[in-house]
């Protein structure tokens, strides 16, 4: 596969992820279970991240996933779970074998596509797409804006970066301990 800009290929993915985002947003506001709604919201965030990446704003895409789909949604979910609003049975919107197989197939398709795209982008000279260059003139070379961010993050601030994960682990263990339903003997 060469690395020239394919309007059809680009347009197909733009509409694919745009439609998924809209559908997820509608599902997000129509779900009864707050946990399911929150999970659909994460889906919206992921689709938006894909659109950012397609605009060659890889960094904003990554941050979208990290900050919104990661941190903020985890906080939402913590609050929802700590308040015990959702019943465990309501969590799954996908029930039965058929829908599950379909969901798995969609997942595999997206994974395969990501891998193909990754291969074609890493190999060879990357020719910036004309349409994209108009939108993001500053994005340069292969890494886009990732490399200047990744360098300090994984060199000078490596320790702080790793400590953040310990902090999140401590927060998760603490929230689980406090939020966990107690056994029958301790039932309040």
């Amino acid at each position, binding site marked *: 596969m060469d690395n020239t800009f394919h309007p059809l290929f680009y347009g197909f993915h733009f509409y694919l992820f745009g439609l998924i985002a809209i559908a997820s947003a509608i599902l997000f506001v129509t779900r009864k279970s707050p946990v399911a709604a929150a999970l659909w919201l994460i889906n919206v965030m992921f689709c938006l991240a894909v659109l950012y990446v397609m605009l060659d704003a890889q960094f904003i895409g990554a941050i979208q996933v990290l900050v919104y789909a990661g941190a903020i949604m985890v906080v939402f979910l913590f609050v929802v779970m700590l308040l015990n609003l959702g019943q465990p049975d309501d969590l799954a919107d996908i029930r039965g074998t058929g829908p599950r197989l379909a969901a798995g197939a969609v997942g595999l398709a997206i994974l395969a596509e990501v891998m193909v795209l990754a291969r074609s982008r890493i190999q060879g000279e990357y020719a910036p797409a004309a349409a994209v260059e108009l939108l993001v003139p500053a994005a340069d070379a292969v890494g886009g804006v990732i490399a200047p961010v990744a360098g300090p993050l994984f*060199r000078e*601030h*490596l*320790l*702080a970066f790793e*400590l*953040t994960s*310990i*902090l999140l*682990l*401590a*927060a998760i*263990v*603490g*929230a*689980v*301990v*406090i939020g*966990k339903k*107690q*056994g029958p003997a*301790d039932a*309040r």
Partner: protein
Amino acid sequence: MTYDLSQPAALMAALLPDLLLMGGAMALALLAAWRPASDAHQRLVGQGTLVVLATSLVSVILAALRGGEATAGVIAVDGFRWAVDAVILLAAMGTVALNIEQQPRDGIRHAESHVLVGLAASGMMVLAAARDLMVIFLGIEIMSVAIYALVGLNRRSARSAEASLKYFLLGAFATGFLLYGIALIYGATGQTQLGSISAAIARHALALDPMLMVGIGLLIIGFGFKVAAVPFHMWAPDVYDGATTPIAGFMAAGVKAAAFATLLRILYEAFYLVGLWIEPLAWVAVVTMIVGNLVALSQRDIKRMLAYSGIVHTGYLLVAAVAATDLASTVFTFYMLGYTLATLGAFAIVGVVQRDGEGGAPLAAYAGLWSTRPWLAVGMSVFLLAFLGFPVFGGLGFFGKWYLLSAAIDAPGRLVVLSIIVVLTSVISAGYYLPVIRAMFMEPRAEGATSPAPTGALTRVVLIVSAGLILVCGLLPSSLATIALRNGFAPHAIPDEVRATGAGLLR
């Protein structure tokens, strides 16, 4: 050997004790979730945590014996770090040992509580090592987040819920101060590493820069909350009261040691060219000593009394911080060791004497303890006398205060006023430590009062070790002081003209 911190392998080697503890805590978190909560399982996880903490302690001791230093970077490799690490790990081991036996009595079955103690201890060790404001902030948060959860462990107790919420909200508020202070310091100097900050201050003559001043002030407020210095102490009595007894001891000993060690490092390494923090900190020390002592006098509950006594000791340690000589860090580690051992022991006895499922620890429960449980009464006396700084029977406590006073008197500028206040308030503190001893030995047992529950094996070990160390080290203070001297970190000398800007009370 020199650790080149720009190399990931050397960074890992320099962080080995911390990494051992973090990795162990992660494995224990898995183990804790492996089975449903039960007394046997929490005991198993607790024992595992003890092993992990002991492993980390061994690696700290090996690292201290090996010595070495680090290039300028995000963490320090020096004796001060290892000494503070050892105190923190001792406190954590004592806490876990007590917690294993206290949890069933409080009706708590979570095995994760031991994991949280391990995670909190790893945050404290990060603090002891940190030389970068970002790492310091993360260390503070790792420690605090774990402690917020530990305070709220007892879900059936309204006091525990109140304590947890209070500590969480005020802690988040204090974190805001801290973070804003860090942001302003970064704004003024453009650096986060302590060494680079002082270099930037020297290069651009920032010693009187308003943004830097406000930043340092906010930073001190944030730390003032963590170490419970007056006027940021309001949470301490309620939180100690609501938390289970071993956790309260952990907060009084470990959190204070870690936060203080960091504060010393920040003040001495980053801001030794800025004199303006000396005077306000001296005032905070004075107010903390006086208010803490006076309020402690009126307490009728041992746990609350110990909370105020912890506030008072914060005041004493602040005097060491204000002295700001190369002795100050040595005095700090020496004092902290004695204080930590006494705190562990005192809270262990409070836990034993406390009746099952009961929140408070009224002074009346100690009347005539000598007649039913003589060894508990003797142990409590040792710990209280160590707090008081009594010679011989107070062991390490006496020499801690002795060295503290000599550091304050010998400091350039001679902190005479502060030293006098230390001595006077120590006399006042006899007014609340000694009545407990009198009640235990001289008052009759109340009619129908039951004898405290038998002491568990682990609790007994904690009591014997802490009382033994206090007394034995009290007999050999000079050898311990030699070790402590080797493990001080030499701060940059504060220039005289800088010290002169912090005048007033110091004269």
